[in-house]
């Protein structure tokens, strides 16, 4: 086909596959040598890994104890509560997908598909449980449809998520003396459930505390400033393990007899305070990056100090530090494994418990720990993916 518009200059067309290969992988003899060596190495590593995963490895401990990995020793009769929380999350994801779109869609779909696949797995599973899993994608769909109604407003969705956080805690803990929602000892919480809770509470609580500490550190009031600096510097100077030990062993010694703070709660408080101190320093970095002119302009149009901070400085400062903050959330998520040291059966500790529960599984470390590593990787990757997308979404109107 020929065109007459010879005057139009087009960008050079991309090279074909063969030319691309030649240019990038085989341009010189040592290039070619390196390419071949790399392919060979890749082949042997992948072949070894895959054949181990598919044929050699014994996945019995993983396949036979899904409940332990998921929720630890949470009473089987009370598992409907965990299911309800999952329903709530599925529904809210559907709702958020419709209202917020974008990246939420990816997450909502991934969750729905994953739970749908779990429901159809060819392993022995009670029908009730299977149907429960299957209900999740349906709830996501219902949530999406509800999003079309007047409820589908950003503020309601945000409120829904906040409410779901409170409900989650309430459902898991239970209420003293209510027969259909009895208290569940936190000692029975475990596995991925406990890991999630430690991380979630840590993230949700450390963020506002971190913001307040960062603002306090910049305050002109000497006492407030002194307290914040002292807190931040002391906590940052101590390893998390030490803080967890202090919270779980030393703290009870100082409390008057009879007062007992729950073990999981103590770990949560320890992790939250630890994360808050680091959060404060990250946020301070963001605060310092906001030019003075922004504050002057806000004051000049008549905003008071709180409005200046809340409407002008913080929104910009927090946007700047999203990558660091998410990095810190990821670190916090992985630091939950340290709770194993003070005797909490989170995911990693459950792994060890599973290994020790059966004599035949004793040597299957590789399988169990690989499984746990993959779980951590999936959630960490999801967080870092979300953060990258969030940065892009908020990048509008960048200076």
């Amino acid at each position, binding site marked *: 086909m020929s065109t007459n518009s010879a005057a139009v200059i087009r960008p050079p067309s991309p090279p074909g596959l063969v030319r691309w290969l030649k240019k990038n992988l085989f341009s010189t003899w040592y290039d070619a040598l390196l390419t071949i060596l790399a392919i060979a190495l890749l082949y042997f590593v992948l072949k070894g890994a895959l054949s181990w995963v598919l044929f050699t490895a014994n996945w019995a401990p993983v396949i036979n104890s899904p409940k332990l990995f998921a929720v630890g020793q949470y009473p089987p009769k009370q598992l409907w509560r965990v299911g309800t929380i999952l329903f709530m999350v599925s529904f809210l994801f559907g709702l958020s997908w419709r209202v917020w779109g974008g990246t939420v869609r990816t997450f909502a779909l991934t969750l729905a598909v994953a739970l749908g696949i779990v429901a159809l797995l060819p392993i022995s599973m009670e029908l009730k449980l299977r149907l429960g899993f299957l209900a999740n994608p349906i709830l996501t769909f219902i949530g999406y449809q509800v999003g079309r109604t007047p409820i589908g407003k950003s503020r309601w969705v945000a409120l829904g998520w906040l409410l779901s956080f409170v409900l989650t805690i309430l459902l898991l803990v239970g209420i003293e003396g209510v027969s259909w929602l009895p208290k569940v000892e936190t000692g029975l919480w475990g596995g991925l459930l406990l890991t999630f809770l430690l991380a979630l509470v840590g993230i949700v609580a450390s963020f506002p505390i971190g913001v307040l500490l960062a603002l306090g550190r910049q305050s002109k009031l000497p006492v407030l400033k002194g307290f914040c600096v002292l807190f931040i510097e002391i906590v940052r100077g101590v390893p998390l393990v030490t803080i967890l030990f202090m919270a779980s062993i030393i703290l009870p010694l100082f409390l008057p007899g009879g007062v007992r703070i729950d073990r999981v709660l103590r770990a949560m408080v320890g992790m939250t305070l630890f994360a808050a101190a680091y959060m404060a320093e990250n946020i301070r970095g963001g605060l310092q990056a906001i*030019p003075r*002119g*922004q504050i*002057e*302009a*806000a*004051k*000049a*149009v*008549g*905003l*008071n100090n709180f*409005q200046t901070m809340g*409407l*002008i400085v913080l*929104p*910009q400062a927090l*946007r700047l530090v999203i990558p660091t903050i998410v990095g810190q959330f990821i670190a916090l998520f992985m630091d939950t494994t340290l709770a194993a040291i003070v005797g909490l059966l989170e995911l990693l500790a459950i792994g060890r418990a599973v290994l020790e529960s059966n004599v035949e599984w004793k040597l299957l470390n590789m399988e169990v720990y690989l499984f746990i590593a993959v779980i951590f990787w999936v959630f960490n990757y999801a967080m870092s993916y979300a953060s990258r997308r969030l940065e892009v979404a908020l990048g*509008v*109107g*960048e*200076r």
Partner: protein
Amino acid sequence: MAEANRTHLSADDIIICRDVHKWFDDFHVLQGVSLTIKRQEVVVICGPSGSGKSTLIRTINRLEEHQRGDIIVDGIELSHDIRNIEAVRREVGMVFQQFNLFPHLTVLQNVTLAPIWARKWPKEKAEETAIQLLERVGIPEQAHKYPGQLSGGQQQRVAIARALAMQPKIMLFDEPTSALDPEMIKEVLDVMRELARSGMTMIVVTHEMGFAREAAHRIVFFDAGNIVEQNTPEEFFANPKEERTKLFLSQILTH
């Protein structure tokens, strides 16, 4: 309330500075400045850089604190009382050299922010007024863009609209065209000329002598922390009295 602090003054005077001193550490920036501005007056302050002219207008809305002397704005004395400071800031609009628009908000949000939060206007009313102001400065079509997507001249016009949204009685301009490319200076000056004609009280720190000549009622020449001389534009340019003024004019007009 602010009412209690209203001091006696001639009904015509809207800003009174009496013997204002200000130090940055040991540096004596303002050395006893006394200046009175009348309602609807347009005053241009010029002078060499570092002479303290920007600092002076920044003390008028308390972005800088003066350490001696009195400043009374529309009958409200600027003191440490934060209520007085906020009351003055609601009366006084300011336009900065670097625009200082809020980059995370759209143009419309930039303009409506203060009326909604500081004046407690309903959103609809604030937006209606904002659109009118954006039309007045000639960029209604940019309302939903972010500041980063506008040219410098457009940004500065948004900044003017943002300041006007609080319906101030006084507008302060701190070298509003100094950060602009030459071809954009005119569009900003045009808006300022229109504002001056509408009867707004304005204090403008600028090197734009053309603007001073045609729009100002009075020119104040500032050097080394104090007023050297002040006069009508005609007299100021034709018959400068002080040697320093003559030197400054010869440097600025012949380059």
